[in-house]
């Protein structure tokens, strides 16, 4: 075997031992032996670079913030084995006041919101009783409306879920103009809880495209993620309409969407 032969076969055999002829040549040729030795040294030393560098702390901060904004990260007290959509049972928030806050954020954040008059709240309105506070706890989880108002479903006369009561809530009724109460215990009503119409999202994205075209893809992706979460939560509520945690989670996801609008507004102004 000649040196030129070694050069030719080297790409194929350098990571192995090569045949006897190759080995014999290396033993007799210092130049080729040195070449092979150094190439193998470079290869072996390079393996140590695989985990050689530490990213700055801001990389994780950016990841966490984004995951929270998308609703991928939830409370770290999540109980093992519970459905993904259900937050920790220990938390019980009174969320009735979140609805107008979320609506206000969404109204400020969306350039193309159209507020149509809401139909009056139905006369019959079931409320959900908190299991932890049977005597006092009554709350209505309300859906913030940023788009077309859907006619709230009237409650069915038969309430089939044992955890639900038909007691009137004792909190001041929010403005019917901006909020549509969720009719708990009404499977059909729960099923009619739907996310804000996609037309508003499209209008929002259109505004982003005009003002900051490079950011459209990012916001479109994020909107898609949060809308998916909204839809899945609603489907879950449809199956388990008495699940307060799920309703609370839905509220939080709406908040996240409002936050997304606000963040976009802050960035593109």
């Amino acid at each position: 075997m000649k040196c030129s032969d070694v050069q030719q076969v080297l790409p194929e055999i350098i990571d192995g031992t090569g045949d006897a002829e190759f080995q014999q040549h290396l033993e007799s040729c210092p130049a080729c032996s040195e070449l092979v030795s150094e190439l193998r040294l470079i290869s072996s030393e390079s393996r140590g670079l695989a985990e050689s560098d530490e990213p700055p702390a801001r990389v994780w901060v950016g990841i966490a913030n984004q995951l929270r904004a998308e609703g991928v990260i939830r409370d770290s007290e999540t109980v093992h084995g519970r459905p993904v959509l259900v937050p920790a049972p220990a938390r019980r928030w009174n969320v009735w006041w979140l609805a107008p806050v979320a609506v206000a954020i969404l109204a400020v954040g969306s350039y193309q919101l159209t507020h149509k008059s809401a139909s009056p709240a139905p006369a019959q309105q079931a409320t959900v009783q908190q299991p932890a506070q049977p005597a006092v706890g009554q709350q209505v989880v309300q859906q913030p409306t940023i788009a077309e108002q859907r006619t709230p479903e009237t409650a069915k006369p038969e309430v089939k879920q044992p955890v639900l009561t038909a007691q009137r809530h004792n909190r001041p009724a929010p403005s019917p103009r901006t909020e549509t109460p969720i009719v708990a215990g009404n499977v059909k009503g729960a099923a009619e809880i739907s996310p804000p119409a996609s037309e508003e999202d499209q209008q929002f994205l259109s505004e982003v495209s005009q003002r900051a075209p490079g950011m459209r893809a990012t916001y479109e992706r994020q909107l898609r993620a949060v809308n998916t979460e909204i839809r899945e939560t609603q489907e879950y509520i449809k199956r388990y309409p008495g699940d307060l945690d799920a309703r609370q989670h839905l509220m939080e996801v709406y908040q996240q969407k409002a936050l997304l609008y606000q963040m976009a507004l802050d960035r593109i102004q």
Partner: protein
Amino acid sequence: MPHLNRVAAGKGNLTDPKHGITEAEAIERAKQGDEAAFEILYQLHKRRVYSLCLRMVSNPSQAEDLAQEAFLQLFRKISTFRGESAFSTWLHRMTVNVVLMQLRKKGLPSVSLEETLETEEEAPRKEFGADDVKLSGSIERMQLQRAIDRLPPGYKTVFVLHDVEGFEHNEIAQMVGCSIGNSKSQLHKARLKLRDYLRSMRAAKAQSD
């Protein structure tokens, strides 16, 4: 060539020393949206991901963005992870895809254009004085990193994927979109160039000393 802990790491038996839970446990908790679990997974794999990005693009700021994007893409899909393959392998491949996508966006060739200019028989042009200094013992890490940074994009990609990250040529060929023979050829030329760079660095250092 042995892989770099790919099998061991992927069995979910990595344990976070701070929290005392295994990677597999962290994955299950992360599927439920547990922020602490996500952070554990990040801490377990951040160096690997970031180092890969940095080696490939040679720019710390870009590497940060790419590492962030790789983790985000992975974490968004974590609910779909069923454990058929190693988690680290999944993350590893996703990182490579993110980086290669970025390189393609920038119009940089995945395979070196020098492939079309050099014949197989030609050796890379030697740097002056390089013949006088031999490489032996160990190579200083900073020198090696600087030398890798100097490689043309196509050579760098194949070299990093094979010698640093431990991918096989058939895997590289699939990821990069070239033939196995091409991958081997690029790797060999990359090593030859690195040898040349390192020798010239040592020669320069020897002259200045």
